[in-house]
């Protein structure tokens, strides 16, 4: 397939997401405004007002209701979208589990913002990291272009009949949401064709009839019924099975999208930047990867064997891809933009170390907690991390496994 013609638009991250939603033939959008997500909803409501979309736009009284409206609309077979961040996402917490448990493929943009208190509207990943166990696919965008591309891909991934899981697309507060960027957009009809209409799988009912998996007056069903110790466990196991199938589908949809857009983000799950012969590697997700790539370029220009591994999906966690990418690295620094108080380091650090334990790799892995509440992560601090890694490669010892960086003492 040939790469389709694209327009270059000056969009911030929020506008890029709204544009992707406009093109994705969404039936229902329900949302409640919260900084820094507000522009997505404002922009989309303009599309509704101007008749550019025929989406049902539901103004609700809270995020809890926003997600409930999307979940129930999705249960009838509708394609749905919402967006939130921080306290708004936290208020959705209960319904996040209901959505994944009902296997409703709702798509949500999360504009990563710190959780209160003290109140802070700027970027960190605490809001989405805490929801990692909620049964949602999580895709972290590095820039606004990727936020646009990932939103379109998310509909295809989530609605796949053998997946049927909700998905979040994450973009960093302000660094992406409010920063103007050149974003290449596909033509409306190209996106329509790519996302298609939502397919409703036929499933076997308890009476062994094949019936559509949705609320349908012709085949009355009860969704989200009482499910006790005799069945609940089996239904949770089914969710894990769907998540297990997700890596393959994420890659497949990413590949198909690359054919029409010409854009790739690693293999769709991870992006390896100069990892082929890297001796020292950093691991991060989100917009920090952009700054880190610049630092890697500078180090490479000076003959240093530096690399970056960016996680694009955090759920499903691409364990095998990570283990393979880190095979020949001698020292690893994991950068976490959130912290788990009282734990041994941040959430990404936990899982990276865990993966390496399984693959018998015992290179030093250290953790840097950075950028909480939108604290800047400039190039010189990332250089500092690589300097520490060089020392670890030389001594084969990590003096401080977990530390904060960019923090005043």
């Amino acid at each position: 397939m040939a790469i389709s013609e694209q327009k270059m638009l000056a969009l911030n991250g929020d506008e890029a997401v709204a544009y992707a939603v406009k093109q994705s033939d969404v039936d229902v959008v329900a949302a409640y405004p919260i900084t820094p997500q507000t522009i997505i909803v404002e922009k989309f409501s303009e599309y509704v007002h101007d008749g550019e979309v025929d989406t049902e736009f539901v103004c609700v009284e809270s995020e809890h209701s926003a997600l409930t409206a999307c979940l129930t609309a999705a249960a009838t077979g509708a394609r749905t979208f919402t967006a939130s961040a921080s306290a708004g996402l936290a208020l959705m917490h209960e319904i996040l589990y209901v959505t994944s448990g009902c296997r409703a493929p709702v798509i949500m943009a999360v504009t990563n913002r710190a959780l209160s208190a003290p109140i802070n509207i700027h970027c960190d990943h605490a809001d989405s990291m805490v929801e990692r166990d909620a049964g949602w696919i999580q895709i972290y965008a590095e820039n606004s272009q990727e936020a646009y591309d990932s939103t379109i891909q998310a509909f295809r991934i989530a609605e796949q009949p053998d997946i049927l899981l909700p998905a979040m697309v994450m973009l960093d507060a302000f660094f992406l949401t409010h920063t103007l960027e050149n974003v290449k957009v596909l033509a409306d009809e190209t996106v329509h064709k790519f996302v298609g209409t939502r397919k409703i799988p036929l499933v076997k009912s308890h009476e062994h009839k094949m019936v559509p998996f949705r609320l349908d007056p012709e085949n009355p069903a009860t969704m989200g019924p009482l499910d006790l110790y005799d069945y609940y466990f089996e239904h949770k196991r089914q969710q894990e099975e769907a998540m297990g199938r997700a890596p393959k589908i994420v890659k497949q949809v990413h590949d198909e999208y690359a054919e029409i857009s010409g854009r790739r983000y690693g293999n769709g799950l991870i992006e390896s930047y100069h990892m082929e012969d890297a001796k020292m590697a950093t691991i991060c997700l989100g917009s920090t990867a952009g700054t880190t790539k610049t630092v890697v370029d500078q180090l490479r220009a000076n003959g240093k064997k530096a690399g970056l591994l960016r996680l694009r999906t955090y759920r499903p966690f691409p364990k095998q891809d990570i283990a393979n990418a880190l095979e020949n690295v001698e020292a690893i620094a994991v950068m976490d933009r959130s912290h788990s108080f009282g734990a041994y380091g941040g959430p990404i650090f936990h899982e990276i170390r865990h993966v390496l334990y399984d693959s018998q790799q015992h290179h030093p892995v250290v953790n840097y907690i950075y950028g909480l509440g939108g604290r800047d992560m400039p190039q010189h601090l990332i250089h500092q991390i690589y300097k520490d890694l060089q020392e670890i490669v030389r001594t084969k010892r990590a003096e401080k496994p977990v530390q904060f960086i960019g923090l005043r003492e």
Partner: protein
Amino acid sequence: MTSQNKGWKELPIAGVCWIPSTEYKTGDWRTFKPVVDTEKCTLCLLCHLYCPDGAIKWNSQARAIEFDYDHCKGCGICAEECPVEAIEMVRE
């Protein structure tokens, strides 16, 4: 939890049952049942609006309210809200 129950590979996903919720007869949860005094009832239908289970119906032919005892859980909200105290909760 017995071995006769289906495993996760066979069960319909998400615990969906192709049975409408009206098939679940929740009336047997009840200890007290509502009874209306048709002499006192003014047919304002507030009870119908307040009933959380949709178990109070308006019978237009009889021009009276009717309780659906298959689904009424006996919560007593109708009796509490009735402005003329026409509904009494009677022990089953």
